[in-house]
């Protein structure tokens, strides 16, 4: 089971509390996790990545295992600790604005 931590505004939008747990097939990548997330919560489509280009929205970041994975390929395997569920994939808003 993959664990995903959403930023508070997206938790509110998706009406979830705490971590999201998802079944994701192998290999576990940013793309496969986000695909599963958007199937479970269709209202999140377009809020994390662009509808068409599938690129990460500029002010969002993907962290895991104390690493910034935002600039990794969406098809690169996520760390084993994320794939095993030991560590969450953290989606968070960049510090910007007021």
């Amino acid at each position, binding site marked *: 089971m993959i664990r995903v931590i959403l*930023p508070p*505004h*997206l938790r*509110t*939008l998706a009406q979830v509390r705490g971590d999201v747990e998802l079944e994701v097939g192998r290999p576990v990548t940013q793309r496969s996790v986000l695909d599963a997330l958007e199937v479970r919560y269709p*209202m999140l*489509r*377009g*809020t*994390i990545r662009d*509808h*068409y280009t599938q690129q990460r*929205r500029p*002010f*969002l970041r993907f962290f895991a295992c104390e690493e910034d994975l935002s600039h990794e390929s969406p098809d690169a395997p996520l760390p084993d600790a994320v794939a095993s569920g030991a560590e969450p994939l953290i989606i968070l*808003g*960049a510090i*910007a*604005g007021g």
Partner: protein
Amino acid sequence: MSKVRVLVGTRKGAFVLTSDGKRDKWSVSGPHFAGWEIYHVKGSPADPNRLYASQSSGWFGQVIQRSNDGGLTWEPVGNKFAYDGVPGTHQWYDGTPHPWEFKRVWHLEPSLTDPETIYAGVEDAAFFRSTDGGKNWEELSGLRGHGSGPKWQPGAGGMCLHTIILDPSDPRRIFIAISAAGAFRTDDAGKTWKPINQGLRSAQIPDPTAEVGHCVHHIAMHPSRPGVLFMQKHWDVMRSDNAGDSWTEVSGNLPTDFGFAIDVHAHEPETIYVVPIKSDGEHFPPEGKLRVYRSRSGGNEWEALTKGLPQQDCYVNVLRDAMAVDSLDKCGVYFGTTGGQVYASADSGDSWAPIVRDLPAVLSVEVQTLP
């Protein structure tokens, strides 16, 4: 007794203000969608409990919310706004070509007859329609494909389609306005469009009387006279008596003819309201006095309405979609400020009182008159 529901969009959420027909005691609900920019909230004339809201954020993009119970509960619907075909380019601020990019929905205009049909005006300027209650959106690309699109340029707030007016006497006729392209009209339900800017004069563009390029801030119409339009342009208050084919200036004795908001009295088609703002460089009322100006003659002769409004040290702005009227016997007039106040008048503007004083900056105000 009739009720009034005021729908307020702000920089940090939506608020629903309700009162009975006396309009002296109000209840405040919100913030809905706290922390998000709510550019516009509007109810369906065909089903007043069906509301639509444009929710957006620099982090998370665009969401459209829908309510079926007058704003008590909401559900997100479709947020996929795809330009039809290859979007092409418009002019950037420096005059260079810039690709069309969707940024946000500025204005939502529900159909007059069908709660499931709604129009959206977006930035970068384009006109969209949904016929399934906001789940799916299609661009009516005849507007952007009009031919003048490559000449359109953003105003300071972005290249936004901010005004949509549906003609109650002719479902095929729609008026829209874009900053800074100007006003356009379709007579075939959005297939083809013509610019309706003849008579506008804008010193800020190379050809002051060009067909397109004018920074129209807002347009208002009385439903009983759909051929008569009133416009607050960047500078100048204008009037058209032929559905936009030509315009004449009616700024008259206003202290400044810069401003954003304009609206028409619910029962007196020649009574109009504006909020003069000092200038494009100083977005606040002249002399620090917040004054609504009313003309009972369709323009040119204006009177200041000040009772109950701050007359010193007031430096707020009133944005283009932040004024509305109700349709009770004694017409109510409402406007919101960038300082977070929403003012109401239950006597056609003669006197004012704040409904709320400390909301986030107000982006839009709409009013529903309910049985």
